[in-house]
C-alpha cells in the first residue's frame, strides 16, 4: 500500500479547447493538510472534483490511498469525505434523515449516535429535526461537513469550507479541521482564505491557469497565491 495519501501524475483536464488542468503532478503524504491555492479558474476545484471521483481526468494517473481512480473509484469513495459548494442533502428531509440516508449508503455502524455527536460538534444538534431547506448558507456548510465526516473518512476534501460562515462557525470549522489533522487524517483544502490556509496547512500547492506554479511551505504558498491574484 502506498505511503502517499494522494498521488497525482501528469493530470490534464480539458473542457473543449480549454485546459482546466495542464499536466499537474503532486503528492500528499498521509496525515498532511494540503492546501490548493490559486485565483478563480486556476483549476483548484477541477482537481478536487477529480480527486473526489466526480470527474474523470482527460489524461494522467491518480491514486488515492493507493487505489487507482481509474480502477477502484468505489473503494476511494468509501474512504474519502467531500465538502462541495452545496450541502448535497435532500432539501425536504430533516438534517437527521438526510444524514441517516448517507450513513446507510456508507454502512456506518451506530449511525444515530454518530449523527448526534457530529451535529453537536458542529453546533447543529438543535437543528437535527429541521428541514434542510430552512438552513442558511453557513448552516448548510456545517451540515455538509457533518455529512462528509459520517463514515470517518481517511481523506477529507474541502472546497471553500469557510465561505458563508460567521465568526463562531469559522472557529468551529477550523477547530474541526485541526481535530481531523490530529487524528492522522489527510485533508485537502481548496480555499481563497490564504491566512487560514497558511495557518492550517502543512503542505501547499499554488495553481495558475491549470498549471502548478508553486509547491512547498504553506506560508510561502499563500504569499505566491496572494501576489498572483
Amino acid at each position: 500500500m502506498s505511503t502517499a495519501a494522494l498521488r497525482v501524475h501528469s493530470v490534464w483536464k480539458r473542457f473543449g479547447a480549454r485546459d482546466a488542468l495542464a499536466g499537474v503532478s503532486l503528492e500528499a503524504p498521509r496525515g498532511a493538510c494540503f492546501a490548493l491555492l490559486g485565483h478563480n479558474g486556476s483549476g483548484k476545484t477541477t482537481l478536487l472534483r477529480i480527486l473526489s471521483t466526480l470527474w474523470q481526468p482527460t489524461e494522467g494517473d491518480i491514486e488515492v490511498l493507493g487505489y487507482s481512480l481509474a480502477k477502484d473509484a468505489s473503494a476511494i469513495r468509501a474512504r474519502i469525505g467531500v465538502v462541495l459548494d452545496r450541502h448535497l442533502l435532500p432539501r425536504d428531509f430533516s438534517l437527521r434523515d438526510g444524514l441517516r440516508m448517507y450513513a446507510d449508503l456508507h454502512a456506518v455502524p451506530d449511525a444515530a449516535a454518530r449523527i448526534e455527536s457530529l451535529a453537536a460538534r458542529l453546533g447543529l444538534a438543535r437543528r437535527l429535526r429541521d428541514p434542510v431547506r430552512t438552513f442558511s448558507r453557513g448552516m448548510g456548510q456545517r451540515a455538509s461537513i457533518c455529512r462528509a465526516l459520517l463514515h470517518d473518512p481517511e481523506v477529507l476534501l474541502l472546497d471553500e469550507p469557510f465561505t458563508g460562515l460567521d465568526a463562531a462557525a469559522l472557529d468551529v470549522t477550523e477547530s474541526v479541521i485541526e481535530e481531523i489533522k490530529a487524528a492522522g487524517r489527510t485533508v485537502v483544502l481548496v480555499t481563497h482564505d490564504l491566512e487560514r490556509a497558511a495557518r492550517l496547512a502543512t503542505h501547499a500547492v499554488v495553481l495558475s491557469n491549470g498549471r502548478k506554479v508553486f509547491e512547498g511551505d504553506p506560508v510561502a504558498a499563500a504569499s505566491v497565491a496572494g501576489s498572483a491574484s
Partner: protein
Amino acid sequence: MSSGPQSGPQCGASPSATSPTQWGAYCALVRWDWVREMKKKTTLISMGVMGLITLFLFSFAIPISSTKAEILEDTRAGILWVTFLFAATIGIDRAFRNDAESGLLEGLLLAPVERMTLYFARVTSTLLFVVTLQGFLFVLFLVLFNQSISGEGLVGLIVSAIATDVGFVTIGVLISAMTWSLPGGDVMLRILLFPMLLPILNVTVEVADRAFDGRAPTAQQLGMLFAVDALFLGAGSLLFEHLVNDSGGSS
C-alpha cells in the same frame, strides 16, 4: 459545545465504517428514494394528474354508448397504454432531473456505490412509482370506460404490463440520465424515448387487447417483451456509467 464520541478526537473518532455491500447500498437507495417520494409525493401526484387528464380527454373523445361500443373495443387497449405512457414519462423525466438540480445526485455519486448499482436502484424505485400509478389508473379506466376483465386476461395483462414497464423504465431512466442537463431535456427525453418503445408498445397493446377478450398472451408475445427488457437492461448497465461520469457541470 457538547462532547463528541467518547474516545479520541471528536471528528476523527473511528465509527469503524466499512464499505457497504452493493446489495446493501441498492436496498438503501431504493428505500430512501421511496421515503423521499412519500414525503412530498410530487412525482406520484404529477403522474396521477397527467394520467387522469389523459383518461378524461379520451372519455370525451370516444363516446361510451352501446351504438359505438365497437369503437371502444378497437381502441381501449391503446387508450390504456397511451395513458400509462404519458403519465409514467413524467416520473421517468424526474428520475435524475430533480436530484441533479438540487445537488443530491452529486451526493449519491460520491457514495461508495458502483454506478451500475445506482442505476438499477433508480430503475427499481421508478418502476415502483410507475406500477403503483398504473394500478390506480387501471381501476379508473375500468370505471370510466365501463370495462371489465376476466381472471385469465387479467393475469396476462399484469404479466405483460410488468414486462413492458421494466423495458420502458430501464431505457427511460438511461435516457433521463442523458437528457437532464440538456436545454429542453424534458422534450428531448420524449423524442428519444417514444420511438424506442414502439416495438414493445405494439406487442403490449396487442396483449392488452387479447386480455380484454379474456385471452392470455402468447408465448411469442411474452418472449418479445422479455427480449426487449434484456436488451434495454444490457444497454443501461453498459452506458450509464459513461453518462454520469463528469456530472455536475463544468469547472
